[in-house]
Structures are given as C-alpha cells and as structure tokens.
C-alpha cells in the first residue's frame, strides 16, 4: 500500500506490544499488513514510555581469527537491527510493563511490537518482532520511579504499513 504522500506535521509516536504471556508473533509477511498489525494498536496494549528511541538498523561485521595469523579478517555482513533501550514510569500494576518484565526474565519470548506514528488522520505503523533483554527499576527517591528495558529486534522480522 502506498505511504501517505505528505510530511506528518508534528506527529506522535506510540509503542504497543502484543498481549498475553505466551504470544504468537506475526510472521514476516504479516508485519507489513495493516489489517494484521492494527489489532495490536489499541489502548490496552500501550506501553507507557517516556520517549520512543531511535529505531532501524546499523552496520554489522563478523570477525574471523586464524590461529598464528598476524591479522584477523573483518567481513561486512547484513545490517543488524538496532536494539532499543526504553525508559518508562514504573507502575507495578501496569499489565504491559509486567509482561515486559516477564519477557526479560525469560529471554526467549518473541513478541510483536508496534511503533505507531500518527498526525491524527494518517497512521504509519512500524511492526517488528523482538525479545526483551534487560529490565531494571530505578527507585531514586528524588524522582518518580522509572523502569528501563531493552528490546532486541529479531533480524529481518519487521514491516511497515499504513492506513492511507
């Protein structure tokens, strides 16, 4: 589907996660289908983050070492997805933050996350599958408690879709 042919003036981005403790993440093809992604983009699945971090991909490289060789070999590989470290106000009763915390303890739960950007009418969704790799709570008494977690997107499992 064609993207909205306009600059979104002052859009807002929101992070959503697939519900339930044992989700079945969307397949690669379905991550690019608006009809498949939009059911995740509902208020009940919202993660109360302070700001959406940069997302996308970065260069990756593999190092090869040969015993006895003076130099190693650096081979460029496919770009790796960027891990996202996210800060949210810590609410121990928030269902979705508890899901994220559970994922971090497990380390093997694949879940579909959606970053939905909207200017009110045009909606662009970036959906990806990822695992949560870290979850910490900062109980600093001089400010409200915050939790920080890192989502590691799975390679190639992302898709864009929009409502135009």
């Amino acid at each position, binding site marked *: *589907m064609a993207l909205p042919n306009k600059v979104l003036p002052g859009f807002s981005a929101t992070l959503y996660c697939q519900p339930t403790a044992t989700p079945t993440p969307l*397949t*690669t*093809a379905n991550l*690019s*289908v608006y*009809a498949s992604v939009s059911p995740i983009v509902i208020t009940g699945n919202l993660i109360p983050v302070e700001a959406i971090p940069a997302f996308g991909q970065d260069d990756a490289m593999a190092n090869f070492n040969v015993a006895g060789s003076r130099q190693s070999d650096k081979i460029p590989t496919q770009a790796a997805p960027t891990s996202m470290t996210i800060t949210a106000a810590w609410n121990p009763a928030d269902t979705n933050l508890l899901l994220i915390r559970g994922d971090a303890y497990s380390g093997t739960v694949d879940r579909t996350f959606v970053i939905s950007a909207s200017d009110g009418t045009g909606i662009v969704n970036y959906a990806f599958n990822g695992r949560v790799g870290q979850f910490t709570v900062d109980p600093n008494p001089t400010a409200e408690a915050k939790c920080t977690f890192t989502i590691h997107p*799975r390679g*190639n499992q992302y*898709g864009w879709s929009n409502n135009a």
Partner: protein
Amino acid sequence: MKLSEAIELLTSTYQSLDAAALGLPVDAKEVADALAKANPDSAEYVALQALAKVNPYENTKKEKVIQNDDTNK
C-alpha cells in the same frame, strides 16, 4: 513449485522474505497475474511482491509489436 505452496511458505515464515523467495522456483507470469489480482493489504500480496522481485516478468509479446511498428505512432 506451485505458486500456492510458495505463498503459503512465505506467509508463514519468520525468515527474510527476499532470502526465502530466492529458493522458491515459480512461474514469473503466474506471479505477475496473481499480484495484479491480489489485495494490497494482505499477507499474500507481500509474499507475491517478494516472489516478483526475484522472478521478474516481462511481456515480450508487447515489446515485439512496438519494435516492428513502422507507423511511428
């Protein structure tokens, strides 16, 4: 390989669609026809797009007509 089998495989995989499509030999014309009929907001359409990328279809018949056209119209 049947196109329906290739579509089923691509819509259910978690691998890179471009990489997976490389290993699925299908008829380019069949892909082009199916792509023209597919709903753009469906997983089938996304799978067909990946297949069309590695199986480009060119209508050679149409090109021949243009080449032999002397009327300059």
